[in-house]
């Protein structure tokens, strides 16, 4: 059951109603029940009848539950470490064997997300920065809370503990805020992402017929598609959870306002970035090998450079992992991993020269136009990465980039060619207006909560704006019979 489907909205309405009828004590149990109910309606289970996949998250949670209890109660460090290693190997083994080894087994929805969520909890218990959960049922809910199973975010136990199990009273404001957030998500997904998909599919699937700006338009469309698709999904997920009184962490913060690739990764898929930083990158740097590496490199490169090389090496592993997590093939490893590592490393290495160059040309890097250029650069670099990401094979991506640089044809913007890339002029206009609206609201969001701004408006204005957005989505969204809305792109990474 896709979260943009009619049936999901019915399911959500009923569940929300029942949730607030129940006493607070029973609410977490109800959410657990609902999470498994949703799990059983996911395409993976519904289409195959493979109800047994529900055992995978239950087993992963059981392993983490037992390990956390052992870690908490054991006195010897050796036992704690053994419990940690066993649980990690079990969970990662399960993830890899189901997701990457292609054993032909049914893969449960959200396996990547719940595995990382559970391991994060376990590491927190191990490093004694998080409390242990004594109830298997509650830990099961933490791992498998249904909104996060769609495409994340990867949640931290300490953020969720009080919210998930404490119970909530109906709060009109919070529920309306949640619904508004969902509406904004539907706008991004159904109006923008699905339109961008038409252009991206046309150009990527027939890239040999296009060159120059045609390729760049298609690639930019895919970047926008991915962002509005994933971002829209997050808005819906966070909105759903907000309706239940549970605030999930933000996964995006206007990533294309980032002035550099490192900043971009602090704004894009934030929960994955912070998880990998805290539970992979920093522990990696604390391993014997990486602790010793600067000392070994120092005689040859000097102290500063030796430290830098060590960091870059650890980052290489981090980015390789990010790329691998997205799909395990080279197009993902390069497109969302190593290429970004290269951007960041080269950015850091070239920074002193760039600073000197700017000083020599009297360029004030604080100026608005310069910031604008940096943001465009971020968009461009990410787009190049996504050409690898979107193409199934690396040689295709390279050929596509070659064709993109191989022709200069700005005339496509005036001679009508643009309207042959999947959207006619009316649909292009709708896409453009929608993107302008999206950008305006995103910029407004940098100044504070847009929903709070809306809340301060008179009732009539508020309702007019809400109805306008509601019917904009209903009328201009791409859905319904004869139209098959694609899945959320990041759903593919959940399993």
């Amino acid at each position, binding site marked *: 059951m896709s979260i943009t489907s009619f049936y999901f909205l019915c399911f959500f309405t009923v569940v929300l109603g029942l949730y607030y009828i129940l006493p607070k004590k029973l609410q977490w149990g109800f959410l657990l029940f609902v999470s498994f109910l949703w799990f059983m309606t996911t395409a993976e289970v519904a289409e195959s009848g493979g109800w047994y996949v529900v055992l995978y998250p239950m087993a992963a949670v059981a392993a983490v539950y037992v390990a956390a209890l052992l870690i908490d109660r054991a006195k010897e460090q050796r036992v704690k470490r053994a419990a940690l290693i066993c649980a990690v190997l079990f969970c990662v083994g399960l993830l890899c064997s189901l997701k990457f080894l292609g054993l032909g087994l049914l893969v449960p929805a959200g396996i990547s997300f719940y595995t990382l969520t559970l391991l994060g909890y376990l590491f927190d218990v191990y490093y004694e920065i998080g409390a242990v959960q004594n109830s298997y049922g509650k830990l099961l809910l933490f791992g498998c809370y249904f909104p996060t199973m769609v495409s994340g975010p990867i949640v931290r136990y300490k953020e969720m503990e009080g919210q998930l199990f404490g119970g909530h009273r*109906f709060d009109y404001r919070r529920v309306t805020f949640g619904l508004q957030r969902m509406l904004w998500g539907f706008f991004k997904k159904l109006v923008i992402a699905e339109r961008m998909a038409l252009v991206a599919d046309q150009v990527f699937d027939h890239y040999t017929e296009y060159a120059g700006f045609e390729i760049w338009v298609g690639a930019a469309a895919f970047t926008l598609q991915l962002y509005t698709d994933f971002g829209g999904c997050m808005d819906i997920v966070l909105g759903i959870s907000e309706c239940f009184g549970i605030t999930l962490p933000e996964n995006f913060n206007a990533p294309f306002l980032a002035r550099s690739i490192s900043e971009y990764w602090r704004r894009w898929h934030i929960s994955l970035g912070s998880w990998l930083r805290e539970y992979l990158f920093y522990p990696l740097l604390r391993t014997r090998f990486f602790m010793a590496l600067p000392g070994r490199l120092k005689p040859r490169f000097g102290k500063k450079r030796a430290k830098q090389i060590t960091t870059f090496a650890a980052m290489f592993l981090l980015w390789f992992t990010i790329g691998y997590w997205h799909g395990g093939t080279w197009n993902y490893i390069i497109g969302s991993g190593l290429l970004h590592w290269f951007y960041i490393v080269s950015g850091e290495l070239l920074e002193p020269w760039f600073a000197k160059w700017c000083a020599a040309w009297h360029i004030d890097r604080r100026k608005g136009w310069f910031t604008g250029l940096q943001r465009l650069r971020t968009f461009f670099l990410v787009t190049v990465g996504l050409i690898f990401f979107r193409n199934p094979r690396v040689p295709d991506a390279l050929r596509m980039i070659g064709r993109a640089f191989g022709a200069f044809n700005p005339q496509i913007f005036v001679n009508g060619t643009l309207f042959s890339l999947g959207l006619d002029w009316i649909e292009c206009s709708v896409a453009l207006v929608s993107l302008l609206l999206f950008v305006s609201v995103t910029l407004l969001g940098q100044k504070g909560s847009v929903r709070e701004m809306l809340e301060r408006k008179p009732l009539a204005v508020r*309702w007019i704006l809400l*109805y306008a957005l*509601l019917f904009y989505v*209903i*009328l*201009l969204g791409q*859905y*319904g019979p004869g*139209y098959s809305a694609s899945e959320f792109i990041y759903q593919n990474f959940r399993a």
Partner: protein
Amino acid sequence: MTKKQAVRAILFLALFIFILRTVTYIIRTNGDVKDRFVGFYAEKENTIDVILVGSSPVYPAYSAPKLYGEFGIAAYPLSTNNQRPRAIRYLLEEAQKTQTPSLFVIELKMFTMPDEEWEDTMAFTRGVTDNLKYSLNRVRAINALVSDKKERYTYYFDIFKYHSNWKTLVLPSQIACWRYEKSHPLKGLKIQLGVGPTQAPDVSGVTEAEPLVPEQTEVLYDLLSYIRESGQDALFLVSPYTMEPEEKMRYNYMRAVIEEAGYAMLDLNEHAAETGIDFATDFYDYGDHVNALGEAKCSAFLGEYLHSHYTLPDRRGQDGYESWDAAYQLYLGQQAGAEASCLADIADGKWAPEVIE
């Protein structure tokens, strides 16, 4: 939640439903079927005495303005393309919400075919369901016509289908349908131009009966029982077309069932001499549907038949029928032009384009 918040939420939802309904009515696909149905809903209450239902042979063959102008009969066709017989009882039910017809005229052609042939084509089902106003009867019609339960919601909330028509939101003709009521100048008639000659069928020797497919038999019995319970009279009609012998056998079967139930069945093919239908000139698509020349003959024959077999009031000159007078005058003008066009085509040997292909 405070009382004020509850009231506000209910108001928001009510307004949303109202706008959604209005927008859906406007953007439902425009065309002659929509025009016919919005025209029906726009009719003054309790002014129509005869309701015609059935598939595409109905709306080009029987002229409501002519029936009114020449016989005083107020009739209206609730006809759609390939109208599935299963839909008929819901159309009759819908008609009786605003009208008190004393006679139902039911065209039978679709009963000769298996229903499953048409269910797969969504458009034929939607022709009925998506031209009804929102009501419980509409929900029942959808439940009866759409067997795939998972898909029914797209029929209940047909905005799922028609939202892509958003560009038509600015058309004045569409905006005028905001209540799904817009007067039809010809009371549902579609005058067909063009001539597609064919041979007259000869099935007069076919006297055997062949049962319908089981689901259509069930629908026929169910319909007869519905009509009996409603207390109205009914006439079952077969329009002129190039009938095959197997079809004639099914009509024979239906005649026995219908007459046994106490209703009449009128097969215009059996009255070709009286209607004056000429298969060489009176069809626009080579034997399936009549053109303006055929329509004049079918309407005259049906009018005469109704006049002589049923007690229907003469509505001419009565208050509330001014739009019918106007429709008749408009009809006379358009019909004369259409007939002249058909005759010119015949004189020139200019046949409808489909045959050339």
